[in-house]
């Protein structure tokens, strides 16, 4: 029996419900302040009418279309094109480490969701796949046609079987000035990908990072560990001590990445294995960090995670 495609769960009804939920929870607040058409007016106060939507608690009552509400017998508000709408660039890491660590399916789901939800809120989105270079990209736009093109690109995407690298900085030529960038990666680089993040943040109008955590490989006994990207090998005794050392190295990498994101002003959301994609999207877009893990008596936090999942920008 073939495995279920990751995008099978990211269907249109769930995406629409998610977009309505995000819109309701934002309650008129802007999704972000980025893009070339920044405008000080609050949301839903533009001039370009789009359609009506159901009234949500917290909406400005002045936005209610009373005639339309009378016809529908339920309060609806007018929806205008967000004149502060910006361009979103979704960068999805398809390096071999994403497949080896099992991070590819949730990353693919998040890319599809993050390409849809901002589009529903009036933004333009674009999706690009990268590894050592830019491997594929879609055209930017909004509307169903643009989303279907982006979804088709994601459905056809597969991670690299080996070789390559995780180089998001290769996508810098794609970035327009002021463009919002969402980077979905496992950030498994010795430099915690911080130089690349700095370049991306400088090139665009803002950078957001979703770090998809990979499940630690189940190594046992004497093994020859081979890096799936560089091909380098290391003969090691994968006992409990080695597994603990690897977990601690991952924790140190996370701590360094978090500190770098905080320094660069990059919102960081860490995605744990098995976490539902829609919850991750809501948590990321609404900037609602999960509570910190309890501290140990020695003052050290647990080995994983060592930092809040979402670092405020």
């Amino acid at each position, binding site marked *: 029996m073939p495995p279920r495609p990751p995008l099978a769960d990211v269907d249109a009804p769930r995406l629409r419900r998610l977009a309505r939920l995000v819109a309701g929870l934002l309650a008129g607040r802007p999704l972000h302040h980025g893009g070339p058409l920044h405008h000080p007016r609050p949301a839903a106060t533009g001039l370009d009418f789009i359609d009506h939507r159901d009234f949500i608690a917290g909406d400005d009552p002045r936005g209610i279309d009373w005639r339309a509400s009378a016809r529908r017998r339920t309060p609806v508000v007018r929806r205008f094109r967000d004149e502060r709408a910006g361009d979103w660039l979704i960068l999805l890491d398809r390096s071999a480490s994403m497949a080896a660590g099992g991070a590819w399916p949730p990353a693919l789901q998040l890319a599809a969701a993050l390409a849809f939800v901002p589009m529903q809120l009036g933004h333009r989105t674009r999706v690009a796949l990268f590894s050592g270079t830019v491997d594929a990209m879609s055209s930017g736009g909004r509307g169903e046609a643009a989303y279907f093109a982006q979804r088709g690109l994601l459905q056809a995407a597969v991670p690299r079987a080996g070789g390559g690298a995780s180089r998001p900085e290769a996508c810098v030529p794609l970035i327009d000035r002021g463009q919002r960038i969402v980077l979905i990666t496992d950030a498994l680089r010795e430099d915690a990908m911080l130089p690349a993040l700095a370049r991306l943040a400088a090139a665009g109008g803002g950078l957001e990072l979703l770090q998809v955590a*990979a499940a630690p490989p189940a190594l046992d006994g*004497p093994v020859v560990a081979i890096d799936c990207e560089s091909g*380098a090998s290391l003969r090691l*005794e994968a006992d409990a001590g*080695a597994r603990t050392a690897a977990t601690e190295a991952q924790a140190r990498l996370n701590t360094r990445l978090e500190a770098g994101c905080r320094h660069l002003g990059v919102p960081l959301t860490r995605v744990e294995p098995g976490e539902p994609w829609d919850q991750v999207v809501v948590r990321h877009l609404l900037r609602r960090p999960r509570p910190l893990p309890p501290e140990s008596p020695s003052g050290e936090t647990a080995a994983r995670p060592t930092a809040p999942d979402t670092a405020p920008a």
Partner: protein
Amino acid sequence: MIGLGAPAWLTGLLLIPLVRELHRRQGPARRVQVPALFLWRGARSPAATGRRGGPPDPAWRRRALLLALLVVALARPAWQGPPAGTTPTRPADGRDAPPPRAPVIRSLSARPSLAAPERLTIAVAVANPGAEPASPTLVLRLGDSELLRRPVAVAGGGTWTGRIETARPSASGTAARLTAALTMAEGGDGGTLALDTAPLRRLSVRVGDTCGEPVRIALRTTGRIDVAPLPAAADLAIKCSERPPPTAEAAIPRLWLAAGGGTRSTTPALWTLPPEQSPAFAIDAGWRAADVRAAMAGGRVLLAGGDRPLIIEHDRPARILVLLDTSDPALAAGTALPLLLDWLVSRLTGTLAADGMTAADPPMTADVPNPESPVRPAPPERLDLTAPVLLAALLLSLFEAAAGGRWRTL
């Protein structure tokens, strides 16, 4: 019992300690792809752990078992049961069979004595399938009387054959039952063989007063005819008459001999029976036959000559009409008349003629050696167990291949 066809292969089991030692050493490690190798740089190398002198990989047991199964399969294991077809000899009287290698009665036979037809020659054969000589005691009984009791010495793998003469039994049933039994010196039972000698018994025959002397002499020559004083005791009635016999049903079979004869024939008489049923003697040319046309109605012609029937057989009532002139001195001078009368009497009474023989063989003689052929004991039943062992090895190797060495214990 489990046996091995090539036990030398079991020396391959000595390789099992080598398998264990090889698993103590560091073999080719598994190659595992990891997302980021730099995370594992803090792990110790196998050399640093001192693994070389440590306990062996627990997977060595599974691989040693696979090796052992293959070695055992090469040794051709088999389950060996008792020899095929060696069912103990069952005596004719249904008693328990003797031990498989003890002497047994191979055959028991009886026939009229050639020198004295009124007596029977009894032949008995005792076989010794074992390798050691044996001296069982042979006991022969005819009815209630014991004919013989003597030890017989039979060499290992040999056969002892003995003959004894005794008078024909006068009655059928239990009195005509011939029994041969073997008794072992150490008290064992060598089995019993029984033979019904009723077909060779003496017959009580009523002979008509009109029958001539040649017929009476010929009947006495057969050696088994007792002229019955009382009609009730008769097995057969012989009547010599010029008139045809009555067609009414009779209590006993009848042999009707026609009296008188015509001209002598110039051709021999011919049997009309199939060759396997025809008697072994012939009626040569020069015979005479009575002209009794009434006897030609119905019946089956046994002997014919000169385009006329000479002997006619009727089933209901059971009778045989003989048109040959049995009072002819020319016929009585030869050997044909006694043989003819003996054959006719045996045909009417269902007994055996002078050349008849009755014999009894053990129903199952697998252990009894045939003197004419060398003794070849049946090979023992053998169930080859190589295929099940190979199947177990195959399943284990499939498990090993599927696990890819991940399961370190069996």
